[in-house]
């Protein structure tokens, strides 16, 4: 049991080192082959821009069913989770946890390996993490996002209602410059210096009750309107708008801002205790059935998309102006170095607090030219902005795709794919590079999915 607890604690500690949130794997191979770009007709597009709901699906529109080929690879070869095994590598295990093996990994970053050296003298301390330095990022380690976890809904004509859970989490862990230098560059620790860390954590969960409207607001028929009602390809000029206000029933909220540090004395390892510790944390929370009870708030998803001469320009804002009011309990926790004790003070009870669910903005452009589509998008969220661009070429029943994207680690990646369409059903494959690993280094994966046209 102790072993399990230790491994769990170690995993949690190292999760703090994870790169800027491993973004979710893209399991839609058609879209991944095009660099992961959003358009109004490739996959789960309506979650990016609510106005897409009103746009006719078109002959090339599809939704995807992932084929988790990576599970086969994982079954044949996977890292051990037994810490007593000589092959156990905590970084391999964390890579599995943060990057579920749903795609085949063609190229993996080199394993984190090698010995760690610590040199100690009375007035010197140097820690050389060797290969482990690769997992320590240059800046803050931020993770999180806004997750809409399914739900259910119904619609009539242009109106729809839906209910679903929404979870927002964010954690930003920062090493002080001195501590980062000491760990990442093996700079010796020095006397009279503070080595600190800070962490800003926030999590909230709510149920969203949403009612919305998505409709065509403007229309100038194109030349081929009668033969082809698809505004993406018939040359029409059209504007589609969508808006869906939502009531947010807050289930739980919590945040914690903490700072901790060690300040060395004149001599690092003097006979008396030469270091002082400091730690201050302030927490705020409210929970359904507990302190503060439920929260109440409102928000909305809004979007617009313009078609003109087979060019598509879309703007979608999810969780626009979304916020929840809570009655929160605020506590302050302080460590006293002199007494070696923590003291907790209740700063406020039922304090009114308004939390914000950060907006996710998606801007996309696409141009259809016969059997060819070229597209690009920018997706900006609380922690990162990703860029995608790609193209799709149809040659009869076959499709060829290529694309590029700048990922959450600000690394440009490349993708390529192919697909075949047989009536309403298609199968797609894509090869893409990525950096969804604790080393933040480039790997490559093979993804597959079925497309329902």
């Amino acid at each position, binding site marked *: 049991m102790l*072993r399990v607890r*230790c*491994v769990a604690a*170690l995993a949690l*500690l*190292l999760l703090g080192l994870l790169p800027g949130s491993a973004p979710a794997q893209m399991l839609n191979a058609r879209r991944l082959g095009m660099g992961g770009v959003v358009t109004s007709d490739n996959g789960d597009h309506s979650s990016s821009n609510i106005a897409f709901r009103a746009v006719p699906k078109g002959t090339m529109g599809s939704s995807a069913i992932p084929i988790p080929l990576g599970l086969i690879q994982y079954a044949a070869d996977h890292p051990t989770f037994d*810490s*007593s*095994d*000589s*092959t*156990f*590598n*905590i*970084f391999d295990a964390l890579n599995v946890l943060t990057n579920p093996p749903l795609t085949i990994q063609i190229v993996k970053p080199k394993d*984190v*390996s*090698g*010995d*760690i*050296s*610590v*040199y*100690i*003298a*009375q*007035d*010197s*301390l140097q*820690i050389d*993490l060797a290969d*482990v330095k690769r997992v320590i990022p240059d800046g803050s380690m931020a993770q999180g996002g806004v997750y809409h976890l399914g739900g259910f809904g119904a619609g009539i004509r242009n109106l729809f209602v839906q209910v679903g859970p929404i979870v927002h989490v964010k954690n930003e862990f920062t090493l002080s410059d001195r501590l980062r230098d000491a*760990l990442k560059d093996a700079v010796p*620790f020095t006397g009279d210096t503070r080595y600190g860390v800070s962490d800003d954590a926030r999590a909230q969960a709510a149920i969203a009750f949403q009612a919305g409207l998505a409709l065509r607001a403007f229309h100038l028929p194109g030349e081929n309107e009668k033969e082809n009602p698809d505004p993406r390809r018939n040359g029409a000029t059209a504007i589609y708008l969508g808006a869906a206000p939502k009531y947010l029933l807050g289930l739980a909220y919590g945040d914690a801002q903490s700072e901790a540090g*060690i300040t*060395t004395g004149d001599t*690092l*390892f*003097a*006979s*008396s*205790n*030469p*270091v002082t510790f400091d730690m201050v944390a302030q927490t705020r929370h409210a929970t359904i059935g507990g302190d503060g009870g439920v929260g109440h708030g409102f928000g909305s998803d809004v979007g617009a998309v313009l078609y003109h001469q087979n060019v598509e320009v879309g703007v979608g804002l999810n969780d626009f102006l979304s916020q929840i009011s809570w009655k929160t309990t605020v506590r302050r926790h302080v460590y006293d170095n002199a007494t070696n004790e923590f003291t907790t003070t209740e700063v406020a009870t039922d304090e009114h607090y308004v939390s914000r669910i950060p907006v996710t903005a998606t801007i996309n452009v696409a141009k259809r030219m016969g059997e060819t589509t070229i597209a690009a998008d920018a997706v900006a969220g609380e922690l990162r902005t990703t860029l995608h661009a790609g193209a799709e070429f149809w040659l009869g029943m076959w499709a060829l795709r290529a694309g590029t994207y700048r990922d959450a680690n600000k690394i440009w990646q490349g993708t390529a794919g192919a697909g075949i369409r047989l009536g309403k059903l298609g199968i797609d494959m894509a090869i893409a590079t990525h950096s969804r690993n604790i080393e933040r280094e480039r790997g490559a994966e093979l993804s597959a999915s079925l497309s329902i046209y």
Partner: protein
Amino acid sequence: MRRFLWIAILAALPLAGCGNRNLILTVDVLSFMDPASRQTSYGPIPSGVPVETVTVFQDSLSLLQGVGDLSRVASASLKVGASFDNTSGTANVEFQVYVAPETAASPFSVPPIADLPVQLLPGQVTNVNTTINASPILADALTHDRAKVAVRMIFTGTTFPIQGTETLTELTAIVVLKQDL
């Protein structure tokens, strides 16, 4: 000192990540010693005293105490270096290093873990060094208990008087740890 050392080790151990990786702790024991105790004058040893024993130092060390509780010691070694500035006389010296459990009555109650022969000539500086490798006694003493550590010299003279200064130049413990989660 202990608290900062613990933090350094606790910070490094998780990053070692278990498995087949090692945490290599190198401790400059000499830096923790009183500078005055690093140097010992010997002599003058007059004629008629063919064998003379001089204790360089003896101390109780606990630098890595407790580390063994959370990690497995794969190996331990000790690097020892000394310099003899012999002003007069000629002698063969046995330079001996002792490491004994804290419970031992004296560090000299156990056999030495290193015994270096040194020849001293008049007016010459002689440097010696050695590494004591893979010593289970050393590993146990350095990491689980306080250890009694001592260094002494046994002079067997041929010309007299023998006189000079011995300086410890290196005393470094190297402990290789594997994390036992």
